[in-house]
């Protein structure tokens, strides 16, 4: 029997996810409330930005539809990543309840099982809302074939960066289950940062957001290219095309941390 490849894992992922969707449908009221509630959270997020712009015409030199492009693209990437990884933030609970042990006795990679577990479509709300905002903002972009390419690669890479951040920081729970909120500062904090033009932050923060928590690649650099703007910090133009590199590096780092985490778990049993 050939050892299963990524395509097979993806299929298994889909099969597990599908079962969870059907399970969630057993409680349609809760399902709908959760989906609507989730859309509401993110929808109100944008209303907040819109209210902000009722008091000014430009935020640090960026117009509403430019900020909407930043917001929409990051939110879309986050929604995709968030939907895909499902329960990775709950590893601590899985360890405590023994569910992780059960998963380890199954012939499917642990990360595939953890991400697919309790798969939920309630982020559909966020996905829809982000897509609408992004679509609207796109109508203001002066499109060229290269810009289309950059836009597509931005969304894919952005999702990879968020995926990596969520998986990587969730791994803290392999070591301690007391400090889950610590991870939120980097995951959700990173997501919040991307709602604004990064030029509002001091240079040191900007460097951190480029090289340490690389969320600047989720939307900031590629959007600068889409909008035909130069970087206020004067970083090289090459950064505007480097999102795929950032996405792949973040993913690789996260997978490494994941492997280390699992190894820690199997060597300490706690």
């Amino acid at each position, binding site marked *: 029997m050939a050892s299963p490849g990524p395509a097979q894992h993806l299929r298994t992922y889909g099969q597990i996810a599908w079962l969870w969707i059907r399970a969630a449908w057993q409680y349609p009221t809760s399902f709908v409330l959760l989906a609507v509630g989730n859309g509401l959270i993110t929808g109100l997020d944008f209303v907040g930005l819109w209210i902000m712009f009722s008091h000014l015409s430009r935020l640090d030199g960026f117009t509403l539809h430019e900020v909407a492009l930043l917001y929409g693209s990051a939110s879309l990437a986050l929604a995709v990543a968030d939907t895909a990884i499902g329960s990775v933030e709950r590893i601590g609970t899985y360890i405590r*309840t023994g569910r992780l*042990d059960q998963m380890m*006795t199954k012939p499917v990679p642990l990360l595939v099982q953890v991400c697919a577990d309790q798969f939920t479509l309630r982020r559909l709300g966020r996905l829809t809302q982000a897509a609408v905002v992004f679509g609207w903002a796109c109508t203001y972009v002066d499109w060229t074939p290269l810009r289309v390419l950059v836009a597509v690669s931005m969304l894919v890479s952005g999702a990879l960066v968020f995926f990596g951040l969520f998986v990587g920081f969730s791994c803290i729970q392999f070591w301690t289950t007391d400090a889950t909120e610590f991870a939120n500062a980097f995951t959700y904090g990173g997501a919040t940062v991307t709602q604004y033009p990064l030029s509002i932050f001091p240079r040191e923060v900007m460097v951190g957001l480029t090289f340490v928590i690389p969320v600047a690649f989720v939307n900031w650099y590629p959007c600068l290219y889409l909008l035909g703007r130069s970087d206020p910090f004067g970083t090289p133009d090459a950064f505007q095309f480097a999102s795929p590199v950032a996405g792949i590096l973040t993913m690789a780092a996260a997978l490494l941390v994941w492997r280390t985490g699992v190894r820690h778990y199997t060597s300490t049993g706690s």
Partner: protein
Amino acid sequence: MTADHTSGPLIDVRDLERTFDVRRRVEGRRRRTREQVVAVHDLTFSVDGGEMVGYIGPNGAGKSTTIKMLTGILVPTGGEVRVRGLDPSRQRVELARRIGVVFGQRSTLWWDLPLRDSFDLLQKMYRISPARYRENLDRFVDLLDLGAQLDTPVRQLSLGQRMRGDITAALLHDPEVIYLDEPTIGLDVVSKGRLREFLRALNRERGTTLLLTTHDLQDIEALCDRVIVIDHGTSVYDGTLAGLHAQGGSTRTLVVDLVDEAPPIDVPGAEVRKVEGPRQWLSFPSDASAAPIVAAVAASYAVADLSIQEPDIEDVIRDLYSRGA
């Protein structure tokens, strides 16, 4: 199945060692101190294909630690484990196809969906061929009498039905060995009986190896020809159930009802354990014959009644534990 897989024991455990670092807060000290706790120590045993082995011991003896190391969930700190020639912790995913695990109180089934859906997913996860899957499912559902429950959401099943569902789930991919952790806990007598009967049939028909941890000694008596007793992380007995009775230095008891009260009976080969009015309890080695003792008692005393008590397996194991401690 290829020849190199069938040579040698199915499970081979040698000098297995597992220690844990535990941090403990000590009274009067600000810092927590690190402490090493030995969970499994110097454990050696092997299991051949087709055996049914009871793995028993008191809570905290190291049973579940051993099972975790056998399934690859936990890496040993010393010694060696091989299951079908595979190193569980390094080849965990590969091994997973060949083993089945049932954790007694935790179900792997999808709570809100019909039993059948969980089984269907497992077919895909283990990539079981459709023909084999159907065949196994039909067989197990028939043997375990689950036909009527297949389309019922798991949350509506009784504890016994759920356990049978979990055991089916663990067997669909034809594992060579199945680990059962407290499979009969919380079940009623009828369910327990049915489950034991099924496991016997499984072993007889397919040669599935069974490693069973349990507190229910009737499980052992009904299923296992071999018992491994573990205490303080190491094996204190490995052999037949009958041998366990003898090995434990276990004794049978002769209960003598005398016509009148008397001082403790003095006969060779037996010892008085208790006197209560006219009734006396005499213990003698399990492997000795009762006849000469009964004759000796009857010859010297006026006996109203006699009875012999077989040793209780729990007492035997308790004996072993106390000697190991």
